[in-house]
């Protein structure tokens, strides 16, 4: 077809999403016949749109643009140049994207290899890493088998925890979607059970890791900085958990004096019944009491440990026997981490028992998002703009 007007009419009927080769034939005849000025901008628009479309579908073919680069006839000079630049930019963008994807894929392969290595090493107990406690009194040489097993246990925990957080994020999304979509109670219950089991899995993971390195657990090393600020025996305070839930569900606690709580009721979609309010208050009190008992036990342990470390003459320079005694006492720290997690688990379960399915779903969503926010806060803090030194 040689008539530009014929081509032009045909193009108009084509619509936006014609394949690229149509442009080339169209453009060529267009050039040879000269350009009716009125249609220049429209054509340019169409071209631009088609260009974008081609970018999205990642056409790698540079064919048409070559033809344009070579032929620069006067009346459409600027238009042609702009189109050529567009095409160049698009191609470069495609190439960059390709390079990035390739990088990602090779990183992924590397990661999988590392994970496999780790698993192998963990089983053999030969992982050399951490080096947190190396060199003290020769207790842990660099390749001490027990030391490396502990490091491997912690490394495995950190990896598992990474997966746990990812899974948590997707569960939170699902909960949010489900609650907005008003799905049935039966389906909501499944989501609630899943979320609960996910927490229980975490407690199981922590129990195993505590056997490897309880000080790591007590310091909350796997958590982000803001989360660590609120640390209580290797995790969040169960009583805080309830406060989060209640602020979200119904209450704002005003004062707490002499065991009485002042409350303000904020109307919600499905507010708590009087019985529920009573039950939640009781739960909060029981939780606080249990928490206090554990805290006091922990303080006693610290006192005992300090006394064991300080036993005998300080300043003489020999202290192996004292440390041997102290080492025995440290076993108790593992019990504390386990008991604290047990309390968290029981509190969560009782909370869910008191609430309806929908309330529980909202409560778990609130809890999950709260921790997401804390983690985000940690990131923001770490990357906050600072004055140059």
């Amino acid at each position, binding site marked *: 077809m040689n008539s530009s007007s014929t081509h032009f009419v045909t193009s108009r009927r084509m619509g936006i999403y014609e394949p690229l080769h149509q442009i080339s034939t169209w453009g060529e005849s267009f050039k040879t016949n000269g350009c009716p000025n009125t249609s220049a901008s429209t054509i340019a628009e169409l071209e631009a749109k088609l260009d974008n479309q081609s970018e999205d579908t990642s056409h790698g073919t540079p064919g048409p643009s070559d033809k344009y680069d070579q032929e620069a006839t006067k009346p459409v000079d600027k238009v042609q140049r702009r189109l050529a630049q567009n095409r160049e930019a698009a191609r470069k963008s495609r190439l960059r994207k390709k390079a990035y994807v390739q990088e990602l894929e090779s990183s992924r392969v590397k990661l999988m290899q590392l994970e496999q290595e780790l698993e192998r090493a963990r089983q053999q107990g030969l992982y050399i890493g951490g080096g947190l406690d190396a060199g003290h009194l020769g207790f842990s040489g660099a390749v001490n088998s027990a030391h490396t097993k502990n490091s491997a246990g912690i490394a495995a925990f950190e990896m598992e925890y990474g997966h746990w957080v990812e899974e948590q994020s997707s569960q939170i999304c699902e909960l949010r979607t489900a609650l907005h979509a008003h799905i049935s109670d039966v389906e909501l219950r499944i989501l609630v059970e899943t979320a609960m089991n996910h927490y229980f899995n975490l407690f199981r993971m922590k129990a195993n890791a505590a056997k490897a390195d309880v000080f790591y657990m007590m310091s909350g090393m796997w958590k982000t900085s803001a989360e660590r600020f609120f640390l209580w025996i290797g995790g969040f305070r169960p009583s805080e958990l309830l406060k989060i839930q209640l602020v979200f569900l119904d209450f704002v606690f005003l004062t707490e004096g002499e065991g009485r709580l002042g409350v303000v009721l904020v109307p919600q979609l499905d507010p708590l019944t009087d019985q529920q309010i009573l*039950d939640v208050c*009781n*739960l909060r009190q*029981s*939780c606080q*009491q*249990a928490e*206090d*008992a*554990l805290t*006091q*036990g*922990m303080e*006693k*342990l610290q006192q*005992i440990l300090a006394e064991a470390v300080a036993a005998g003459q300080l300043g003489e320079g020999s202290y192996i026997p004292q440390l041997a005694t102290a080492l025995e006492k440290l076993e*108790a720290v593992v*019990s*504390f981490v386990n*008991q604290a997690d*047990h*309390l968290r688990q*029981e*509190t969560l379960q*009782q909370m869910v*028992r008191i609430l309806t399915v929908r309330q529980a779903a909202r409560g778990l969503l609130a809890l999950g998002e709260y921790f997401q926010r804390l983690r985000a806060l940690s990131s923001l803090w770490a990357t906050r703009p600072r004055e140059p030194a």
Partner: protein
Amino acid sequence: MHQALPYRTWVPTTGGGSSAGPSSATIEPSDGPMNPGVGMKDVTCVTKMVSENAVIVFGRRGCCMCHVVMRLLLGLGVNPTVFEVDEEDEAAVVDELSRVIAGEDAKEGRPQFPAVFMGGQLFGGLERVMATHISGELVPILKKAGALWL
């Protein structure tokens, strides 16, 4: 109980208590209440203590978990009796307690420390105490055992 009275710690003494079991053959003259470790221990008093006390906690000496249980019970207004077990007596005490428990549904046989007895029966360890407290069931049980009045 509106005031928290200090808990009573009971340390086994040789030939102590009024029970004269076959193992209390050695009687040390003028031994004070804090004189453990001499001769055979009379641990049959253990059975007596379980039946005489509304709430009694058996724990190893210096055990912090035992301390946690005590603090929790104290916080609820209970006066638990605490029986601190020395390392050398541990086996004997566990044996005795197992005998006490036998007859009820034997859970894994031997009790673990800290072991809480209520109303003459084994209640459980720290975990059970925590769990029942969170679920709201502990206080009624304590009242039923006579450890709490309201």
